[in-house]
């Protein structure tokens, strides 16, 4: 290639050079395993959600009298509309499944620890934005569960002292959930995914500043390979597996993750007998219900996100990150995973005698995980760098 050609190479142009630097020639540790593929997969999920959402919005009408019927119109009259809708509805669940794997992978390999604190914090912000987007996205179909879900969740703000009722009125755009609520929720549901894109770019930029972590949890500065084609090909295996998994839901069980009551048009008069949130809200729902006081329950949600944000600052084990080399943390991690599964199960159980006890123990264990997080790091610091001393890729000497 001549010098002139090199100068005018597409990959050296202003925007493309950045894309090349971050998406094609990005120096990636050579020892990443398949679990690392969940990050890029989450990006693909976001793109799928945005594309299907934009096309759905072309046929959807955000009005209380027309919303439910416009969704049925999409299902019956629009060419491929059922596919778009099922892809979007199940895509939200798939997105959150992928993000949960991504978060637990990060937790296992200690990817959140120094110097990647900002990566972790931006990730928690993305997770929070995702939850809000998913919640307000459940309202536009305007079925019974959309209406009552919106009523219950927005009413939680009334637990805030002094300004609570004013906030609820502001959220509703009136004195009850109605047309104004539907319109603003639809508008925000269209807006927030683009904020998610921005936050994701920030997340990626923060990650690429110090480079990706790896399963050994050590510095891999001397052992990098280009992300393209090596990790694109490796991630492709995960993408195909994911496509098969999500296709099972879209084509064979499209409503299994939803609620049958949402096929009844919204009606403010009869309340559904058992209002259950979507599966991805169940752990937070369980924590909310664990305190037998409305204000207390609402107040318990904030510490969840504060704990998730504080995690990199609680962990003292900077040089030995991966749970593979931290036996105490490995045990704590697995118990935390079990507790997370229990929270999901208990969140969909009725508030009755058998379930109340476990519903109060599980959130306690959840917060206990973060409380004892500094301990394994402290214990291991008595034996500093025990792993990196015995391994070829140690930290560069200053």
């Amino acid at each position, binding site marked *: 290639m001549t010098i002139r050609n090199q100068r005018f190479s597409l990959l050296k142009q202003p925007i493309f050079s950045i894309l090349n*630097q*971050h998406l094609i*020639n*990005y*120096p990636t540790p*050579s020892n990443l395993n398949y679990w690392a593929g969940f990050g890029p997969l989450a990006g693909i999920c976001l793109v799928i959600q945005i594309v299907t959402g934009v096309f759905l919005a072309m046929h959807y009408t955000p009005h209380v009298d027309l919303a439910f019927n416009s969704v049925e119109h999409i299902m019956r009259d629009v060419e491929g509309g059922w596919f778009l809708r099922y892809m979007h509805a199940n895509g939200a669940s798939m997105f959150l499944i992928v993000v949960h794997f991504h978060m637990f992978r990060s937790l296992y390999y200690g990817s959140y620890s120094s*110097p990647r604190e900002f990566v972790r914090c931006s990730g928690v912000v993305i997770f929070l934005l995702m939850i809000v987007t998913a919640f307000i996205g459940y309202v536009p179909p305007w079925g019974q569960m959309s209406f009552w879900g919106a009523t219950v969740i927005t009413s939680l703000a009334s637990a805030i002292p002094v300004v609570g009722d004013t906030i609820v009125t502001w959220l509703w755009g009136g004195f009850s959930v109605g047309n104004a609520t539907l319109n603003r929720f639809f508008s925000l549901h269209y807006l927030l995914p683009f904020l998610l894109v921005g936050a994701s770019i920030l997340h990626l930029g923060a990650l*690429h*500043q*110090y*480079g990706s972590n790896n399963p050994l949890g050590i510095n891999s*500065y*001397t*052992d*990098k*390979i*280009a992300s393209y084609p*090596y990790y694109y090909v490796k991630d492709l295996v995960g993408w195909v597996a994911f496509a098969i998994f999500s296709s099972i839901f879209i084509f064979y069980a499209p409503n299994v993750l939803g609620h049958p009551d949402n096929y009844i048009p919204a009606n403010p008069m009869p309340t559904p007998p058992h209002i259950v949130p979507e599966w991805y809200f169940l752990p937070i729902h369980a924590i909310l219900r664990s305190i037998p006081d409305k204000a207390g329950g609402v107040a318990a949600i904030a510490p969840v996100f504060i704990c998730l944000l504080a995690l990199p600052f609680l962990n003292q084990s900077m040089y030995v990150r991966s749970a593979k080399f931290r036996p105490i943390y*490995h*045990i704590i991690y*697995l*118990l935390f*995973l*079990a*507790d997370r*599964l*229990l929270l999901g*199960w208990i969140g969909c159980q009725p508030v*009755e*005698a*058998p*379930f109340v*006890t*476990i519903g109060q123990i599980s959130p306690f264990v959840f917060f206990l995980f973060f409380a004892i997080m500094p301990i394994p790091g402290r214990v291991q610091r008595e034996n500093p760098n025990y792993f990196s001393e015995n391994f070829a890729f140690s930290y560069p000497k200053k």
Partner: protein
Amino acid sequence: MGVGGGSSAKVKSVVYALSPYQQQTMPGLWKDFTSKIYKRTLGDWVSISLVAVPVIGTYFYFSYGTTLNHGYLIISNEYH
């Protein structure tokens, strides 16, 4: 890309020992497949137990108790 957004880490060039015609996709995937699965699952029974026992144990404890007591689990005098 580098520390403080500075210089990028050097990328290693991957040198293939085999030509594309001699390479196989995922060689050795099926070799000792059962023993590999065993090693990853039952072979690591401590890890499996740490997750499965609390989850399945709690589920069956409460489900079984609930069935026996006609919808209410009697675990203390509080529920008598």
